[in-house]
């Protein structure tokens, strides 16, 4: 299985100043093992694109406290008080993007689409400075595609080729981010033989996945806890 690597190998693919796409919604569907590796490294000036910045001290929240981050692009940071404070102190840049615009921009980044016109946020502060276009009588604003250097995502199950499926709403941004970065590393709970996932049920085809890492977290009482 040439795609399987150690979690610490993840660091070989990330350079200071890179843009990371990080799957997850809060802590759900989040590559906790890979984030631990980055938080324990001395990577710096990273820009993270993710819906949230994890929670205070958890998931992406660890990277903030560890000083790995320069900028966060996402839709909702209010619930991580560390993020709010770091922003207040001028230690973290934040770019706020409506959730649907964020999802679509990442999808476009992976799809060879340069940008798109959305009706979301027309007439709001988010639209300040953005190009507006009227299409068939409706107002839209232009949003540019988002791409990353490295995507780290979380999947429930991979096959040995790297086909992925996800656990319920743990799917969220993960399949989109898998399309939009030069290097894609998927943290998985389980790896099965190729052919064990019905082709109809594959969510992320293996061509999007460069490397697989086995998760060091196991789910207990519905929550992921470190296994060792």
């Amino acid at each position, binding site marked *: 299985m040439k795609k399987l690597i150690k979690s610490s190998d993840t660091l070989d693919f990330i350079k200071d100043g890179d843009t990371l796409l990080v799957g997850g*919604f*809060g*802590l*759900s*569907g989040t590559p906790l093992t890979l984030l631990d590796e980055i938080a324990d490294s001395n990577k710096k000036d990273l820009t993270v694109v993710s*819906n949230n910045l994890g929670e205070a001290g958890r998931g992406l929240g660890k990277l903030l406290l560890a000083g790995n981050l320069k900028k966060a692009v996402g*839709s*909702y*940071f*209010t*619930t991580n008080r560390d*993020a*709010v404070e770091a*922003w*207040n102190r001028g230690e973290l840049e*934040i770019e*706020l*993007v*409506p*959730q*649907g*615009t*964020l*999802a*679509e921009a*990442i*999808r476009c980044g992976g799809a060879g689409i340069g940008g798109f016109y*959305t*009706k*979301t*946020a*027309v*007439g*709001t*502060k*988010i639209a300040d400075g953005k190009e507006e276009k009227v299409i068939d009588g409706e*107002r839209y604003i232009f949003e540019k595609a988002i791409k990353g250097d490295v995507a780290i995502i979380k999947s*429930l199950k991979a096959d040995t080729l790297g086909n992925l499926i*996800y*656990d*319920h*709403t*743990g*799917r*969220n*941004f*993960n*399949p*989109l981010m898998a399309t939009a970065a030069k290097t894609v590393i998927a943290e998985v709970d389980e790896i099965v033989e190729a052919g064990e996932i019905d082709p109809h049920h594959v*969510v992320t085809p293996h061509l999007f996945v460069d490397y697989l890492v086995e998760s060091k977290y196991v*789910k207990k*009482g*519905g*929550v*992921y806890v470190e296994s060792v």
Partner: protein
Amino acid sequence: MNQSDRVKIAKRVVEELPEGAVVNLGVGIPTLIPDYLDGKKVYLQSENGLLGIGPTPDEEHVNMDLISASKKPITMDTGASLFDSADSFVVIRGGHVDAAVLGALQVDRYGEIANWAVPGKKILGVGGAMDLVAGAKKIIIASTHQAKNNQPKLVEKLTFPSSGVRKAEMLVTEHAVFKFTEDGPVLIEKLSDISMAELREITGTEFKEKIKI
């Protein structure tokens, strides 16, 4: 505001939801709605990728990868479906949600909504609010009549940042139900025994009356 007023608002909003509707519920009072459907079947959509939210699970059945957009554990209804975030906003922005029931900081006399940020305060969260405002077929604002500082929520002109040019269809408070028209709000129902004079007093803009008797 006391809980019975919040429940009153939730119950009144339920009357506006057609049987079988696809509904997205914002935070606050809208989250009470599932408990007051009274047998009406609606399909609850969640921004993070689910159609068909079921009842809250007991502790044994919690799965952190089966949560609502407010990151609370949920279950799935019979016939539910799961999808990624891009497809979830195809649903929302594409006009496939029959009704979004949202809270608001302010609503202007034409139904324009401010529900994501307070001026002068750090704005660090928008989530799916603007997508819902832009895309839902019908927007119902479920809110207390006044903010905690007694300022009216229904105002002449927004002083808080707008959530988009698309207007809400309706506002339900503990005192009144308003429909928004091009000429401003129309009171269509009173929900408390407040006097008309008092209602006008605590409302931030003029409104017409067209009340069923």
